[in-house]
């Protein structure tokens, strides 16, 4: 049995009486990649926190064997020393410190108490070279590098600690396709060199590509562990949700009417680099009841484009917006909401939710004056509306007054959607509406989108998940490097066609 690098046996963990994990097994052989799958809130992160001793030994039940010996770690330092390294979903970098300083944070190389920068920079360079990364300067602050590069720096940090097991928690949620490619290739190389990894991801294609074994957990219980050869992404989904997901996209017919919104010659300049155009002369139209997908690589300027339509772009921009053929002046989100344009922003935590405010009050914040007379809120009326919405969107919450931050990602997203649907917009912009949302909630969000389109709302959806764009949209716009690269009617459109347009001449230049 000791041919396992890691064996977690019968792990159970409770939080004030509620079982978050109930008898989970996880085994990893040296050089093996294990895919860990489960819906949001299934207990994946909790399991990894048990493994890395964020929850110290003794606060959970079960046994962990590491290289054949029982591991009773009580701090992250101990597990790191043993060779377990976690790379979290949200990168833990100190942006103003240099790449080398970040890599050696907590493990600084020093002589007589003074930092030895030369040694650290040289060693950082060496580590990055091992990852085949040659365009990162270890002496520059981390904030100069994109999310993908930062991910690589995190991995270099883990390598520096001689990690034998890498745990990657949703590593690709903020990466571009090419960065994802680099990362997946790197993991394959690690496997060949004998470094094991646990890969946690909602993106099952990635799991299918690199995992040797897949473990699925649901509601804190162990559903199954099987070699990847015996599985398909569809069968993993079935295991995750506990029912068969025949159709991921509940497409419904909806009538498309006349043009409702027209944006002409939108140009935006970069916040930090005022000479660079992030959106370059883009024009678009959208019709009543139409679902318009906006595809493109991360950083192509999609978010900036839709923020401008919503009056939320912070710095210099120009262009005109016409609603029903009339030119509108939309300078703030408030103007937009009043004109009938609403937006669900990309980053839910940063700009979507009011974390410590109740779920219900989160939903009504845009339409409060509707319930008010002389500024006084009629709580009775407000509550009635909140309860209707909670039932309609199937938001799972024990009490509408619970802080929204205590809900799962999917339910938070539904509440944010509700907030932006209550003003009864005529144009609804959704920026990455299903990011960090589990399969079940995704399906419900898609159903909502179709229901809205049926009532004549024009839906503008930005998404980095191509299957989603193709599964939902009537028409797809492709943005690349701030420019409009394609306008396709979604009729037998393929991912390859969209991707080719997105990469466009970027590929030719490279």
């Amino acid at each position, binding site marked *: 049995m000791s041919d396992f690098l890691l064996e977690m046996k019968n792990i159970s963990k409770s939080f004030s009486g509620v079982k978050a994990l109930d008898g989970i097994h996880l085994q990893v052989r040296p050089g093996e990649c294990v895919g860990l799958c489960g819906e949001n809130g299934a207990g994946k992160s909790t399991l990894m926190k048990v493994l890395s001793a964020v929850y110290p030994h003794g606060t959970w039940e079960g046994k962990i064997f590491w290289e054949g010996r029982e591991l009773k770690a009580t701090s992250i330092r101990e597990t790191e020393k043993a060779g377990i390294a976690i790379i979290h979903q949200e990168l833990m970098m100190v942006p103003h410190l240099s790449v080398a300083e970040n890599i050696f944070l907590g493990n600084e190389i020093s002589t007589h108490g003074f930092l030895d920068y030369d040694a650290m920079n040289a060693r950082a360079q060496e580590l990055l070279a091992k990852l085949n990364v040659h365009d990162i300067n270890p002496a520059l602050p981390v904030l100069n590098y994109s999310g993908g590069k930062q991910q690589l720096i995190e991995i270099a940090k883990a390598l520096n600690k001689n990690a034998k097991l890498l745990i990657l928690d949703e590593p690709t949620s903020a990466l571009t396709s090419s960065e994802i490619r680099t990362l997946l290739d790197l993991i394959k190389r690690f496997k060949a060199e004998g470094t094991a990894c646990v890969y946690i991801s909602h993106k099952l294609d990635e799991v299918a590509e690199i995992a040797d074994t897949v473990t699925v957990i649901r509601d804190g219980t162990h559903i199954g562990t099987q070699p990847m050869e015996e599985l398909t992404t569809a069968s993993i989904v079935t295991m995750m949700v506990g029912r068969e997901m025949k159709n991921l996209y509940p497409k419904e017919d909806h009538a498309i009417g006349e043009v409702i919104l027209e944006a002409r010659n939108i140009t935006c300049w970069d916040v930090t680099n005022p000479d660079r155009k992030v959106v370059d002369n883009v024009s678009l139209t959208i019709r009543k009841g139409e679902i318009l997908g906006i595809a493109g690589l991360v950083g192509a300027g999609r978010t900036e484009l839709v923020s401008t339509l*919503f009056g*939320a772009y912070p710095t210099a921009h120009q262009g005109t917006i016409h609603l029903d053929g009339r030119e509108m002046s939309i300078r*703030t*989100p*408030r103007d*937009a*909401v*009043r004109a009938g344009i*609403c*937006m669900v*922003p990309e980053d839910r935590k*940063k*700009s*979507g*939710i*009011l*974390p*410590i*405010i109740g779920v219900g*009050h989160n939903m009504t*914040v*845009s339409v*409060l*004056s509707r319930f*008010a007379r002389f*500024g*006084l*809120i009629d*709580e*009775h009326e407000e*509550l*009635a509306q909140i*309860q209707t919405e909670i039932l309609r969107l199937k938001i799972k919450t024990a*009490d*509408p007054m619970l802080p929204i931050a205590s809900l799962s990602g999917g339910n938070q997203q539904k509440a944010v959607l509700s*907030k*932006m649907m209550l*003003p009864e917009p005529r144009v609804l912009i959704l920026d990455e509406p299903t990011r960090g949302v589990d399969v079940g909630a995704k399906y419900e969000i898609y159903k909502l989108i179709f229901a809205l389109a049926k009532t004549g709302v024009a839906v503008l959806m930005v998404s980095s998940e191509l299957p989603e764009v193709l599964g939902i949209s009537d028409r797809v716009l492709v943005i690349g490097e701030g420019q409009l690269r394609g306008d396709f009617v979604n009729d037998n459109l393929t991912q390859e066609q969209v991707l080719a347009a997105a990469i466009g001449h970027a590929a030719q230049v490279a």
Partner: protein
Amino acid sequence: MTGIVLRKFLSENKIVALLIVVALIWALFGYLTYNTDTGVSGFLTARNFSNLLRQMAITGMLAAAMVFVIVAGEIDLSVGSLLGLLGGIAAILDVVYGWPLAGTIAFVLLAGAALGLMNGWLTSYLGIPSFIVTLGGQLAFRGAVLGLTGGITIAPVSPGLKYLGQGYLPGWLGNGCAILLFAVLLFMAIRTRRKRLQHNLKVPTPAMEAAKLFGTGLLILGFVLVLNSYQGIPVPVLLLLFVLAVFTVIAKGTVFGRYIYAAGSNSEATRLSGVNVNLVKMSVFGLMGLMAALAGLTTTARLAAGTPSAGFGGELDAIASCFIGGTSMRGGVGSVIGALVGALIMASLDNGMSMMGVDTFWQQIIKGIILVIAVYLDIISSGVKRL
């Protein structure tokens, strides 16, 4: 198990926990100031209670508005100086120019609101951090009052103005107010309960509800009886109670109040929801200025004179009261009643220690320590502490 239940109850009803602290402090001072000859405890007399409340009234007025400022994620360091400036202006208008009382009050309130709005405009529209804006204000306003008064005390103020700070309500009027207040509370409790039931929301058991109302009623009754047994409800205390009522309604029941808490919880998300966050924050500073004006008028009235040093350090007392009362430094959380009980705790410490003849330096040291302990207790009881 009872320990856990108790802790849960206290973390959900912070105000009860705070009132227990008040009771403990009073019991301690009651014991320490007990005079075996007369059989009376100096601290626990109606006269001292009346004094104590009058002392806390001014800090309380500032704290009530400071809660909104801190909840909105900002800070106002200028209110002590602003209080001094506005109190000085009130004294000059009243003593030197002989303005009618109504004119003086109206002018000072307007000036306070205007200066507060200016702080708010600099903070929210020009984007200068409120810490800096109001630190500047602290220096500038104090300078202005020194310049206006020429550094001397301006006295004596008119009897009308004096009544605002030193007067008492006749007993019958005090009783009337108490009965009215209880009637309103009773009406609201019944209405809330009916509505919650209508929406199938959880309601406390009728016994719990009755007990709560009975407790509140007892508190009001005791409050009025004790004060009436001395000279009646002091006017500044009545003003403070009025402020408490208005601010609580703003916090819990108005669109504006909801926006304050929303902006403090996540300013960016609130803006993207179509709320004019800049206007909300500016108005909060305006309200703060208005309360500084009220506190300034009360201070001048209480001293029967305008002094250039009035309100010195007042902003720190107000801020400390908010934090003791459970307002979160990170914004989004805090209650007006909590801040006022915080102010009561501070005033009780001041009053009790002065009565015992504790040196001023010791008083300051002890108050500082209490502030830190109070916030620490709040942190551990709400379970937000991370390792």
